[in-house]
């Protein structure tokens, strides 16, 4: 096998870890973020205080530190060990490692905190008059949320959310601090063989991925440009 093909295959393998982290972080963090947002807006003060404190801690400390804590702390305190996969499918068991699962948990919690603030801002930024207009027309709170508020929130949060999501693409590289074999670390390992260019090559993976996401978000923004909020 020639060198380029070998590097490409290895990088693709590393990239698959990054993409798995990316996709599953979004799947967990977006709904969790919405839940935290509702807690932060709750009329019940203790719930509000707790969720705002959690958000403060998660946004106030480095993600790298959170990854360390989540990976090592359960074991150090004898609480539990992160599970490993035993499907017998070698690639799968090796890719979805205990390390990747721990990183995924850290990413999901951290990004949920950021998303929750975006959602909260989006919901609270909807003028009160929209809610009131629905109310005087005899609509229920649920009807108002789903028929009036939601679409306006979606439109408002697309730009800040897409920013976060693009940051997440690049943040997945942080998982290598606990030994997840993601893209960057795979590329870096080729330096042991005296190859520098795989590092630049790995940059191209990120660029193309982010480029595709950017096109998607531009399309979504355009789709919703027929109204102003």
């Amino acid at each position, binding site marked *: 096998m020639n060198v380029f093909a070998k590097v490409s295959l290895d990088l693709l393998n590393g990239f698959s870890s990054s993409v798995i982290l990316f996709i599953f972080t979004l799947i967990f963090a977006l709904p969790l973020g919405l839940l935290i947002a509702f807690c932060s807006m709750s009329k019940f003060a203790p719930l509000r205080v707790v969720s705002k404190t959690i958000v403060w801690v998660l946004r106030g400390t480095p993600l790298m530190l959170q990854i360390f804590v989540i990976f090592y702390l359960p074991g150090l305190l004898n609480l539990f060990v992160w599970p490993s996969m035993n499907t017998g499918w070698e690639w799968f068991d090796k890719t979805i490692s205990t390390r990747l699962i721990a990183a995924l948990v850290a990413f999901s919690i951290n990004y949920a905190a950021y998303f929750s603030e975006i959602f909260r801002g989006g919901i609270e930024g909807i003028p009160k008059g929209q809610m009131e207009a629905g*109310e005087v*027309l005899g609509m229920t709170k649920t009807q108002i949320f789903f028929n009036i508020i939601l679409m306006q929130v979606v439109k408002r949060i697309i730009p800040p959310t897409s920013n976060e999501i693009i940051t997440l693409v690049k943040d997945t590289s942080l998982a290598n601090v606990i030994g997840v074999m993601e893209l960057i670390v795979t590329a870096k390992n080729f330096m042991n063989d005296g190859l520098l260019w795989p590092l630049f090559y790995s940059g191209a993976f990120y660029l193309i991925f982010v480029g595709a996401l950017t096109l998607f978000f531009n399309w979504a923004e355009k789709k919703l440009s027929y109204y102003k909020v």
Partner: protein
Amino acid sequence: MAFLEVKDIYKSFGKTEVLKGVSFELEEGQVLSIIGSSGNGKTTLLRCLNYLEFADSGTVTLSGKVVSDGKVLKTLKESQIRENRLHFGLVFQSFNLFPQYTALQNVNLALSLMEKERAKKGLAPLYDKPSMEVAKELLIKVGLEDKMQLYPCQLSGGQCQRVAIARAMALKPSVLCFDEPTSALDPELTGEVLRVIKELKESEGITMIIVTHEMGFAKSVSDQVLFMVDGIVEELGTPEEVFDSPKSDKLKAFLQGLNVKEGR
């Protein structure tokens, strides 16, 4: 007994007493204008009638039936409040149209949800035709036949307010309230909105309560005019009584202030 009886409405926000015993009566099909300077509680009164605020005490009676009683308001369930508030409609100063919907969808939305709910509960529909038809007819009535498919951001302020009026009428409120319907409009656009309101009175005979700073309009459209000062009814009478022979000194000063401002 009058069609609408509002009796002794009190409302405070914390320590600020905003409404201090407001009472008036209105016959079916009549128009009441509420005038007075800024911060006197006019908006708060309309919001109380529409349950956007809960009055601390006082009653509202419609055709002999109590629809709002300050004493029990806070104990009502959401469903009861919804039912009661449907007696009233409200047109906001800032329109509050739903930006993601066309003019037609704005008028249709609440009505179609309501008709679905009534059908599910086995109640007779509000109209004997599809809600979309009703919405179209209402938009034609306010002169927006050719703007139905446009979004609020594509309409002028006057057109937006006319959509808001059609939207408020869709649920057949017994009393339609307007909170300074032309205050957010450029002067050249106020005319079309005021004309629509006048037509509604003449052709539909809708009972209306209008808070307004347009004295000429108040004079010509109203059956009664209420002058409010500091949360109380300072003077109440026919337009002729209020505008041409005001009794209270405060009303005289208020009207004089307006004349000076308008350079008359």
